């Protein structure tokens, strides 16, 4: 009887272990629309922080979810089909690549965006490379 229990126990452990392993292996990418922003701030304030001390700002914001409000400067489709929004400054502003799943379900919102108007996006900050890179991002609010 003891051996039987040991075998059953071992099988259960293996099954659970394999389950956890597979779940980790197939873990999906983060769904931005369901995650809460850790920081809510204005685009200009975020840019100033990175310009003032890039290393400190990178440590503070990199890989964190940010909700950013700023002026939409441009809206483009990249070669691979990704929607690219730029806030505040065309060259040294905030570059936001929209989440492809969210974007395909929200094309009317993207199409109605107006250059020069205020917009709020939420996305993962990737750091600073001439401009602040945010991807993937979604639109939270547009006026």
């Amino acid at each position, binding site marked *: 009887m003891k051996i039987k229990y040991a075998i059953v126990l071992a099988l259960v452990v293996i099954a659970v272990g394999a389950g956890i392993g597979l779940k980790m292996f197939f873990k999906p990418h983060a769904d931005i629309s369901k995650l809460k922003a850790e920081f809510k701030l204005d685009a200009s304030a975020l840019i100033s922080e990175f310009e003032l001390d890039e290393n400190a700002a990178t440590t503070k914001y990199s890989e964190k979810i940010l909700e950013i409000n700023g002026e939409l400067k441009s809206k483009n489709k990249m070669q691979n089909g990704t929607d690219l929004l730029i806030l505040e400054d065309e060259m*040294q502003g905030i570059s936001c690549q929209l989440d492809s799943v969210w974007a395909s379900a929200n094309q009317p919102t993207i199409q109605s965006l107006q250059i020069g108007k205020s917009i709020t996006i939420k996305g993962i900050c*990737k750091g*600073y*490379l001439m401009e602040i890179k945010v*991807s993937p991002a979604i639109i939270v609010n547009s006026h």
Partner: protein
Amino acid sequence: MLVASLGAISQSKFISKNAYISFYSSTPLEDILGESNEAVTILNAETGEIAFQALMTTFHFKRALMEEHFNENYMESTKFPKAKFNGKIDGYNSSILSGPVNDIKVTGILSVHGVDKTITISAKLGLEDGKLVGLSNFKVIPENYGIKIPSLVRDKIGKEMEITVKANYLPFGN
């Protein structure tokens, strides 16, 4: 501020803010491909100097777990957030920028994971449909850049990683 000061030399520099860079390795289990569309590159038309930078965190993988391992275990992205290349086109002559896509060699310093190495890479540069494009495909050995790969998986991953780069350059300041 910086943009204003660049106005005077707008004709002599080309930039791409959304250059493509990928990192590929084949394993028996599955191929590992990390891609970024957020690299920045600047080409100085007067001197033939090329600067290329990518943020490690912008590399996107098919599986979230691969992305995690890439950033946390291998590249240590918090410690070394950027990969950089600063080089110069060998035997540079500005006329190649107005001709069709041609083979070039670029020699410079590749800085990855905090380690600098001088390398020469083969690339292509020139006009395609009236636009200046740059392409390159080269191989790197992770161990040369102090990137430790656990022995358990070392045999399964190819010794060299293949790097592919594509950039569509635009005149700076426009």
